[in-house]
């Protein structure tokens, strides 16, 4: 059995996990900083970095203890090296390098988005490539086809805001708490998604790329014009209509990719894929096409280290290890090797 200790600190969760053979979770510890960042209406990078620094050793030690293992028993140390907030990434990367050096263990730098994709292997150990996958989170919106283990064909990505970022910004405009995704998801249940027709932005020259900043502006304009005309804002309708516009675009691009590839499975990943309306829409669309929808359980959708361990196992098997000069790469693209 190959045991990988994985560390994740790319945004506002300090996380560590021990994964066996890339598919079995022996432990999964997540220390969220959300309470602190809520005070500021979003993640403050410097505060996130400081909190990672305070918490990282306890989180990693607990992951080892929960797995009933010790550092000397693990076969490799994996860490998210990008993309993400550079100061936050550096804490995890530096800590992992210190552990790997003094513990004499192999080091594996992992791509955060590959981690999200690989959360599906934890959820469905029998899953094998190829399959298309939509990764939607606060920092990323990427449509890719997983062509093999550790091999990705990127079909489309957001040209501006990530889907989750749009949720956060619209939620803030509606006076909803941070993070915006769960708040809008909940409020939408009480609203009419057909009430307001927000634009479904197309991106010139790409069938698969996304753009959410225009949609966000349309929502803000709608709110402004209501206020100017002295109309009360139907908050739940705005939330539901905005959410529908986001989901429609994600779904149409995803189904186009699915139809072209002819794959019989489609995977979701990332924090926004925990959105109930999004899951329901994808489930329905996949069912109509006789396609199996695969989606991690919510705790594996948001940032966690178990998924980093799952992705690292693929690299471990291929013998792809990192040197001690591994850096943090804030803008690393899916499929790129640092």
């Amino acid at each position, binding site marked *: 059995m190959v045991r990988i200790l994985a560390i994740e600190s790319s945004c506002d969760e300090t996380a560590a996990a021990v994964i066996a053979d890339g598919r079995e979770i022996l432990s999964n510890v997540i220390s969220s900083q959300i309470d602190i960042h809520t*005070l*500021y209406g979003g993640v*403050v990078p*410097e*505060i996130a*970095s*400081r909190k*990672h*620094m*305070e918490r*990282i*050793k*306890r989180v*990693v*030690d607990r992951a080892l203890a929960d797995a009933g293992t010790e*550092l000397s028993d693990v076969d490799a140390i994996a860490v998210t090296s990008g993309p993400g907030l*550079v*100061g936050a990434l*550096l*804490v*995890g*990367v*530096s*800590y*992992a*390098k*210190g*552990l*790997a*050096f*003094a*513990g004499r263990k192999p080091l594996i730098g992992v791509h955060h988005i590959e981690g999200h994709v690989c959360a599906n292997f934890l959820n469905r150990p029998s899953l094998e490539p190829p399959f298309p996958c939509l990764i939607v989170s606060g920092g990323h919106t990427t449509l890719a086809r997983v062509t093999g283990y550790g091999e990705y064909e990127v079909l489309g990505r957001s040209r501006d805001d990530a889907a989750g970022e749009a949720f956060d910004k619209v939620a803030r405009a509606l006076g909803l708490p941070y993070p915006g995704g769960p708040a809008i998801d909940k409020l939408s249940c009480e609203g009419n998604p057909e009430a307001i027709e927000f634009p479904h932005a197309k991106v010139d020259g790409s069938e698969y790329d996304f753009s959410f900043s225009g949609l966000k502006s349309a929502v803000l304009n709608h709110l402004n014009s209501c206020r100017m005309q002295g109309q009360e804002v139907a908050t739940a309708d705005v939330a539901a209509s905005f959410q529908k516009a986001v989901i429609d675009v994600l779904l149409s691009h995803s189904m186009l990719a699915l139809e072209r590839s002819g794959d019989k499975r489609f995977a979701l990943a990332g924090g926004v894929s925990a959105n109930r309306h999004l899951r329901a829409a994808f489930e329905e669309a996949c069912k109509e096409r006789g396609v199996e929808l695969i989606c991690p359980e919510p705790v594996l959708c948001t940032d966690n280290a178990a998924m980093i361990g799952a992705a690292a196992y693929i690299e471990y098997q291929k013998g792809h290890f990192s*040197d*001690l*000069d591994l*850096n*943090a790469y804030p803008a690393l693209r899916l499929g790129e090797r640092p």
Partner: protein
Amino acid sequence: MKLIAIDSSGNVASVALFDGEKVLGEYSVDHKKTHSVTLLPMLKELTERVDYALEETDAVVLSSGPGSFTGLRIGGAAGKGIAAALGCPILPVPTLEGLCFRLPEWQGRICPMLDARRSQVYSGIWRFEGEELICIEPGKALALEEMLDMLNRSEEEVIFLGDGCDRYREAIEAGMRTGYRIAPAHLRYQSAAALAVRAASLGNAAFVAADDFAPEYLRQSQAERERAERLAGSGS
């Protein structure tokens, strides 16, 4: 006491190995600020060069701040990871005290000064009495002018060191009415060997559990400052 010392609080990346009697080796680089890339390979090379037995380490010495926020965390997180793997504690040394230990022979006041941006410096005043380092003004973030005023209140000669005395050399020249010197280039910046020697003088009593180590930044994040100002403003 066997110590691994790391300082990445400023432009210099520095690592040293100390066996309680002598500095087995020090490796310092003042090139480009890519501590995240260079620090661990430097330490690995140094340990191999001197056949250092990692397992015999009594503590990992870290510059505990002030300094570059990111720099402090690169060295600090790496040091915590090393301490975790070795099961040893951390021996934190304030960056400014570590700098003072570059100049233990100086008769007079020592003023380590780091550029804190926003027209401020991280600075304080110390003096050696025999082998003992005496603090006259504790380290903090303050305006350069304020620091110079403080120094001008005594006629005792001062030696400046740290990157702040490069950044503000002209202002020091214009503002100092007391005799002063600037430390020579080979003694002016952070050194992990000086940090280790300082740490050894503090001894076991200064150990902290690796779990608990976090840098002393001496300054809040911008978001925290602005929020505190907003809250103070709305309260009045």
